[in-house]
């Protein structure tokens, strides 16, 4: 690639990102995440909820006063927000990314240009990745700030029974783990965008692409939690996506995490390539 081509690619990507970030819906979405974080914080402040968390920390032999802190609250707010809204929102954006342009007719305008379909999709995939990372960063940082505002500074208590994670850290090691979790969570969430992207490349309405993506994730999550399928965990998207949580294990299982992310990466590339192959074969007519 020559420097001219790189400059042109950056311009094209800039245009693609501008389209994504200039929409009001993007900011309404970010606002919705903030609102949800406030709601989660409110729920965690309810006396019985607070007592239950303190009881868990106390039961592990630690002082709840040290560990019921901003970091702990931030992690809880972030996890709940991602669980409740993250997939939905990324499925919405990913589901729109191609099919909405086809529906609106702007894709035909783009395809009048001397640019390959593959390059258009590459630009969109990169924009989706940037968006996933930006959204993850936004959620995790605002959750942490909300936690600090209410809980102040202190140790981190991480508790994810489904993933067998139960750990307590002092402030700095806890903060380090939290920060390490951000890019890993971003990588996991990018899978949602990739699934939605695949359906978006097919001949269907944007809403259909979003609904099918959410259905896939829901089914995947439900089926993997059925006891009969415990030994098939590795086959499920959501099991691999949940691997970021293990960054809070006392001994981080790097080998397993690398394997999970390599497989997720391969899966994402496969989804994008299938999407591209479908898109290449499509006819676009008014």
């Amino acid at each position: 690639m020559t420097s001219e081509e790189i400059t042109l690619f950056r311009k094209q990507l800039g245009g693609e990102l501008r389209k994504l970030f200039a929409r009001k819906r993007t900011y309404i979405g970010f606002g919705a995440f903030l609102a949800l974080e406030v709601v989660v914080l409110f729920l965690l402040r309810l006396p019985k909820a607070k007592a239950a968390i303190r009881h868990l920390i106390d039961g592990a032999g630690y002082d709840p006063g040290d560990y019921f802190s901003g970091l702990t609250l931030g992690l809880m707010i972030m996890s709940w927000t991602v669980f409740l809204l993250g997939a939905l929102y990324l499925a919405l954006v990913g589901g729109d990314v191609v099919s909405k342009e086809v529906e609106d007719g702007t894709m035909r305008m783009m395809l009048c240009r001397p640019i390959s379909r593959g390059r258009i999709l590459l630009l969109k995939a990169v924009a989706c990745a940037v968006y996933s990372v930006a959204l993850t960063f936004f959620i995790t940082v605002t959750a942490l700030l909300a936690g600090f505002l209410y809980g102040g500074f202190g140790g981190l208590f991480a508790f994810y029974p489904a993933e067998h994670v139960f750990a307590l850290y002092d402030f700095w090691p806890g903060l380090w783990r939290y920060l390490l979790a951000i890019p890993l969570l971003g990588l996991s969430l990018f899978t949602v965008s990739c699934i939605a992207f695949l359906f978006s490349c097919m001949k269907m309405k944007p809403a259909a692409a979003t609904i099918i993506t959410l259905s896939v994730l829901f089914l995947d999550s439900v089926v993997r939690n059925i006891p009969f399928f415990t030994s098939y965990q590795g086959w499920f998207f959501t099991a691999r996506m949940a691997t970021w949580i293990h960054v809070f294990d006392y001994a981080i299982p790097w080998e397993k995490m690398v394997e999970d992310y390599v497989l997720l990466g391969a899966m994402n590339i496969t989804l994008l390539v299938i999407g591209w192959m479908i898109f290449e074969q499509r006819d676009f007519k008014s």
Partner: protein
Amino acid sequence: MSDLIRLESLSKSFRGRPAVTDLSLTIPKGEIFGLLGHNGAGKSTTFGMMLGHVRPDAGEAFICGHSVQKDRAGALRRVGAIFETPSFYDYLSGWQNLRFFVSLSGDVSDARFREVVELVGLTERIHDPVTHYSHGMRQRLALAQALLPDPEFILLDEPTEGLDPAGIHEMRAMIRKLRDEHGLTVMLSSHLLSEVEQLCDRVAILDGGRLVFSGAWRSGPPQWKLSLDDQAAAGDVLDRYIAECDGDVVILREGIDIADLVSDLVHAGVRVRGVELLRATLEDFYLGRTRP
């Protein structure tokens, strides 16, 4: 003139239903060419195949010598297109829309941007969000995005659709200007046959996906309607000047001027009440070549 556009045996079916069958066409450089047909005749599919939006089942389209099917980027490098309902990102300004679409073609200088925006008359409103644009303004913005990469060939699918009479007039003048002053080759489709008639000397007519005519629709000698007092007395004169006669409608022999005929008729004592050049309309021509 060399052919800028060459369509070779293009065919396309959708779910087994033929949309275009064995279409071959050529368009010379610098021409305004009309593509006509009823709804569903295959016009949009043809345009789609020319722009690489639709993959033909057979055949190939060439623009400036590049095959659209084999070298789409090369073929579309100097091509602009407008569709009947131009689509833009409504939440972006006209300028931002132009910037985005043009970035897909390559780099265009700010001076060129300003020049084209001025040409289409959008200078005042170019920084407004497109959502506030009227249909006519959107059409002009579409023309700007088509012209920005400095095309040699421009493809207009129903360019006057939804425009008011002033807008139609403006668009027609613009198309002429693009050909006459900028040397562009234009291919357009429109249901407004009067518009096509005013702009195009050559047309192609599609019917059921098949090409039923391609060429100069006004070809053939002019026909004159003569109103004479005494047809019998005019017989000798008419025999000398006329190639064909159908009642009072005549076709003159090659090289004969109508003024000479009238002069001789008057000298022969025939009173000439009226002489009218019968103009063939594209509508008659079109309807005569398509199924009812």
